[in-house]
């Protein structure tokens, strides 16, 4: 009995020390060494349309067109995954013009501009399309200075750009519910 008592205290201390060391190791291991969010988690919160638009806005060559004024059929900006460099005609010491987007699907589209340009959209019946959301930036890149979300039906939609101080603006149009595509195409 006395022998057991004599060794009980050192054994308890040893067990306690071992437990603390092990617990410490586990706590150290569990502690985050780098508290910053993982890149994948960050990218997951960026809309796919913005990622796509920024890629097209920042890379590759642009298709150059000149917008029109008056009752002329506007030039088309309908090619998918394309950055259009639009030259705007002068208008009252500023610049403004019209281009045409031929929508093949009834869905929400996001229009990205590299300039702070005002936008009015007319549907195929020449009725104004209400803008669902607008912003002066994109979370995906700093190139975007204006971002508009609009519901398009099937058919030609007239985009009235400006008036703005910029004589040229870059435009990329993406479907809001963007689908993956092959950039080689």
């Amino acid at each position, binding site marked *: 009995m006395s022998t057991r008592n004599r060794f009980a205290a050192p054994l308890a201390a040893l067990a306690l020390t071992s437990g603390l060391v092990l617990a410490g190791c586990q706590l150290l291991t569990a502690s985050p060494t780098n508290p910053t969010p993982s890149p994948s988690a960050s990218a997951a919160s960026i809309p796919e349309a913005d990622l796509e638009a920024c890629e097209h806005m920042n890379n590759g060559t642009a298709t150059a067109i000149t917008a029109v004024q008056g009752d002329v059929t506007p030039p*088309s900006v*309908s090619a998918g995954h394309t950055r259009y460099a639009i030259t705007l005609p002068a208008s009252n010491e500023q610049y403004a013009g019209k281009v045409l987007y*031929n*929508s093949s699907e*009834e869905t929400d589209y996001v229009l990205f501009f590299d300039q702070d340009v005002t936008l009015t959209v007319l549907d*195929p019946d020449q009725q104004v399309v209400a803008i669902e959301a607008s912003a002066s930036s994109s979370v995906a890149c700093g190139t975007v200075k204006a971002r508009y979300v609009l519901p398009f039906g*099937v*058919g*030609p939609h007239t985009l009235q750009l400006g008036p703005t101080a910029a004589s040229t603006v870059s435009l990329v149009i993406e479907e809001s519910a963007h689908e993956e595509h092959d950039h*080689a195409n």
Partner: protein
Amino acid sequence: MIRPLLISTVLLVAGCTFQPGVSFGTLADASLVARFQPPASRLDAEGRLKTASGYRLRIDSLQLVPRQLDFQATTGKAGTGGSFDPANPPAGYSLCHGGHCHRDDGALISYEEIEAELSGGSLATVTVLSLPAATPFDLLSGSATASLMPAPSSRQLNRGQWSNSVLQLATLTASGSVEDTTAFNRLGGQTRSWSLTLNPSAFSQKIDVTIDREHGERLAIASTFTLSETLWDGIDFQTLAATPGTLVLDQHTATKAQLGENLAKSQFNVTLTP
């Protein structure tokens, strides 16, 4: 005594091994459904098809004539590092889409075969089942179905690993009229008649089917082809309308190319169930 017993045993075993003419599988059913069913957003109040550029098309006839449905097996060895850009295919190939390219001699070659060729591999495609399908489909009704079942004597399937299915189409013909009801009035208020005759490219879909006794002996094939409602998108009817008479869309080079590009957006799907 032992010799007759030995002979009997050998004959019994041989009898088990050499059964008379049993194949590894049997084709239980085979069908092709062809569809043209534009969504409501593509139709106006009069049932006319709306194009992306705002023209309204009345379609008076729409007929698809298929040629055959093929199933292929891939043999040989793949190499490594033979990737290529379908938008910029290697010499001898063009029109890469849907998993295959057109070789200069007219053959359809899968991406895997081209990659194998580029990397020194030796993949080759062999057609293991070919189902003729020459019945015309009237797509004005929206959907039509044809049986592709061959004669009973041709329903036996050999052992193999199927990797690809290819739907060959013979012709697509259509006719109707077109108007521009938008403010652009690109046809000067006229209604113009149009027609087209196309020889579509093949459509393919990868599959992974094993034909052997472990994977069931009866195979049912259900295939569908859905013609894209975007077929007439991007056609410059205004330019075509400068010439009098019916607008024969396939006789204008740029228009024919646009039609081919739009037609490639059609969907081909095949389901194989044991």
